[in-house]
């Protein structure tokens, strides 16, 4: 049996999974990154190595997520893919019947339209984080309720309270107002869940042909209140994949598995030993032209392994050749 590593480095969490040849999940981790993608990946690699059978390593490694370029260079991934493709690949593996994917993560949300397992349309939220996990996180903190219990409280709501969800700032002032009117916390939480879903459907989901079955994944899929709100507004039951929180990482692992199967070659992955290495980034401003690009210099144990951020590509290309 061969094993494949998948890493999804997002804005809020770092997810690490190991799957086997049949794409069954052998081990998975959901780590809060706290703004430190390198540290969280190092930590994740050290921990996931322990979940592999004695003496085994991985035959391929894939990376996705917004920090994929950096982490791809860090681990020497076989495949570095965008989140849309990774999520679509994972979902069509576990739920080939799915025709819509709703994915809500920490700071971004997306909708992917699938027909016969192929992505035919997609959209991501633009600049606003009002319809994402961090919005819920903030509001939960404001109400003094742990985020894990947040969704459950919405289900206990007895009457409807409407909260403006278009913008975090408006939502907050609306919430204070409703509290002062004497609305119960449960009703307000339900109102927030409805508002987030409304905002998602009218911004990210706008103009998209949402057909069932709809798969719901990403960290926010853990929230039963949001699930219920989606089911009410879409008038359909959602499919929540078993590994909903790490679907991107699974997709990256599947893509890596397919890649090495195609090339036949050994993996480029540096091995789990790198979790003991020292990874650092520094930045410098290139002065060769008026663009003044900010170049990120990435070092492993003091040796430069990658550079990026240059518009002209001369720094990043120089490293690739080295």
């Amino acid at each position, binding site marked *: 049996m061969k094993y494949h590593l998948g890493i999804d480095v997002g804005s809020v969490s770092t997810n690490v999974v190991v799957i086997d040849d049949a794409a069954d999940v052998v081990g998975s981790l959901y780590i809060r990154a706290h703004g430190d993608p390198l540290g969280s990946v190092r930590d994740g690699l050290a921990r996931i190595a322990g979940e592999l059978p004695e003496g085994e390593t991985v035959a391929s490694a894939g990376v996705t997520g*917004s920090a994929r370029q950096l982490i791809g260079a860090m681990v020497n991934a076989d495949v570095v*893919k*965008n*989140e*849309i*493709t990774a999520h679509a690949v994972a979902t069509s593996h576990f739920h080939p019947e799915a025709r819509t994917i709703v994915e809500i993560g920490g700071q971004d949300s997306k909708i992917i339209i699938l027909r016969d397992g*192929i*992505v*035919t*349309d*997609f*959209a*991501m939220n*633009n*600049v606003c984080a009002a319809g994402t996990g961090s919005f819920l996180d903030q509001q939960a903190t404001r109400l003094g309720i742990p985020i894990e219990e947040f969704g459950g409280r919405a289900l206990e709501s007895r009457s409807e309270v409407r909260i403006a969800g278009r913008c975090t700032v408006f939502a907050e002032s609306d919430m204070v107002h409703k509290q002062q009117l004497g609305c119960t916390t449960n009703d307000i939480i339900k109102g927030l869940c409805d508002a987030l879903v409304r905002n998602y459907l009218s911004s990210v989901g*706008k*103009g998209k042909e949402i057909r069932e079955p709809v798969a719901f994944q990403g960290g926010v899929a853990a929230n039963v209140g949001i699930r219920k709100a989606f089911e009410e507004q879409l008038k359909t039951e959602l499919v929540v994949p078993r590994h909903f929180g790490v679907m991107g990482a699974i997709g990256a692992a599947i893509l890596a598995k397919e890649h090495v199967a195609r090339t036949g070659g050994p993996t480029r992955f540096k091995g789990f030993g790198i979790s003991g290495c020292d990874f650092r980034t520094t930045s410098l401003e290139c002065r060769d*032209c*008026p*663009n*003044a*690009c*900010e170049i990120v210099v990435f070092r492993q144990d003091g040796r430069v392994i990658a550079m990026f951020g240059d*518009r002209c590509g001369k720094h990043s290309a120089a490293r690739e050749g080295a």
Partner: protein
Amino acid sequence: MPFMAPAPVTERKTRLGIPRALFYYAYFPFWEVFFSELGAEVVVSGRTNKKILQEGLSVSTGELCLPIKLLNGHVADLVGRCDFVFLPYIISTQKGSYYCPKLIASPDIAKAVVPGLPLMSADVDIDNFFTSLFATLREVASKLSTNPVRIYAAFRKALERQELFECHIHAGALFEEALAAARQGRSPADDARGPAGREGEGPLVAVVGHTYLFNDPYISFDLLHRLRERGARVVTSDSLSAAQVGEEFSALEKGTHWSLGNRVVASVIRFSRRRDVGGIVYVTPFGCSSDSLVKEYIDANLPERKPLLVLTVDEHSGDAGVVTRLEAFFDMIARLPAGAG
């Protein structure tokens, strides 16, 4: 004032500055020939870079859209390098459709943010574009020459260059390619195989939007180049002739009122009909009020369109969002069966 006063008595040519922004991407071939023929030295602002963008952002008020801020940056770049900056008031180039108020007023906006700007201008608000353009430009040319024969000859030559440029554009060449070909006097028939990069096996991607956005590599995150780098062939909304835009609209109930918006809608319709087009990328500036209507118009009226990626460009310098969307879009159209969508 940082400008040098025009010196009519010296033998030095009058230097005429043209900002590399907005209508530069549509009419520069004409302007270049017309003003050179009248004895001016045409100075174009530099290619958009961080410095020009920053300058534009710092002199402009926050409410202005990115293309106008960028124009101001290019105007500032010309300060001290020319005697006049040429900025026309282009209101309408076709009956019944208009440019956005910010574009129309762009010379006034530039004057407001760059005090003392010596402007050479022209009004374009016409049904018959080039005849009227000649009339309005005669006023402008009086700054350069008073000889009507010379002006008419310059106009003819400029028109010829512009027409040749547009032939290349309508044949599918990108701005720089068409400009180079027109300058060399080559006709599209001379380039039987088309300019390099348009041949290839990759999917055909249609890029639609305002010409000054996707033709500016800095502000569009090098979109056209990135697409070609991935093996795609690229066709843009510039390639539609005015007649083709009108044709597409004759089938619809009404247009969008905006010239640039109509071109986007017509392009989406036309490219959606073409079997060889894999998908459409719509480039729009953040906060563009006319485009906000155009997007709704497309969603409401064109259900049978090809996969459409809306790329919103802003003054953010990070390209991660654009790269992610483009990659995903590319994966998508590469896996779609030909002719689907």
